[in-house]
């Protein structure tokens, strides 16, 4: 019985942790959207900044991956 409750809590927590990925999605969309609007205003400067954009994407995506990892840990490791 106690194990059931622990498992229930773990599954609920895993589901909740997945909402963090939505935040990462918003973040990545924001980065790319702003890059695109900037790039359309000044296309000549866009080429040199793609690397910066990817770094930004990587940073914001990492946090989504962290929440996914928490979900996985709760699902399979606890």
């Amino acid at each position, binding site marked *: 019985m106690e194990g059931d409750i622990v498992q229930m809590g773990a599954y609920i927590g895993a589901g909740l942790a997945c909402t963090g990925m939505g935040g990462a999605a918003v973040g990545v969309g924001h980065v790319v959207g702003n890059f695109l609007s900037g790039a359309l205003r000044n296309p000549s400067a866009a080429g040199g900044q793609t690397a910066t954009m990817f*770094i930004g*994407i*990587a*940073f914001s995506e*990492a946090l989504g*991956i*962290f929440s996914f990892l928490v979900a996985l840990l709760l699902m399979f490791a606890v």
Partner: protein
Amino acid sequence: MATETQGVEEAGMELVFHPMDQFIIKPLFGDGPVGMFTITNTTLWMALSVLCVIGLLVLGTARRSIIPSRIQSVAELCYGFIRKMVEDVASKEALPYFPYIMTLFIFIVFSNFLGLLPMAFTPTSHIAVTAVMAMMVFLSVTILGFVKNGFGFLGVFWISAAPLPLRPILALIEVISYFVRPVSHSIRLAGNMMAGHAVIKVFAAFAPMVMISTGIGLMVTPLSILAITAIYALEVLVAFIQAYVFTILTCVYLKDALHPHH
């Protein structure tokens, strides 16, 4: 999940599998325990990526033709891509470290892409592997920073552009973020790889639904196959982007070590 497994097994079909099964390390020969030197599936796929590296960068360029063949131009593209990245992001002084960065990039890119083959194993989906690489980058960059700049390397934490009262707080944040670097660096790669492969496996578990119940299956099976295709396409993109991101972050850290005063 337990009941599902049970249900299917009772129906006489062993179709449902654990999405994490694909990450299991098993010995290639025999069933013995996995020791340090055991030849496992990790060994196999790492060796395959080494073979691919040799095939692309050594055999592909063996003819040294001025007008490159297709494979040679791919090799040259890889070389030029990473070299330009090192030069642009980490400045010209980082060029002596170009072979190290190229090693990391080419290993990650090949194990990511080989891992996308059906039935394949992805070494980079394991935190142990990416953590070793990230720690190597972190340690060598830190040591390099101190060797090149002495204690001036600590200037990377002391942001002279900020107003004086803020600087200690910023320094604390910078120190924390500096030590979190290897964590995020490794988990980003392993997490991305693991996530994509696990999601594909989850959809793959739904795909044979039509064999269990024709009613729902006729709807679920095509949808899940479509989803697998879409996620697979995304994974092809991610496989490259994560290798790129790992490499470019290495370059960024290297730049910090070479030029700590922003």
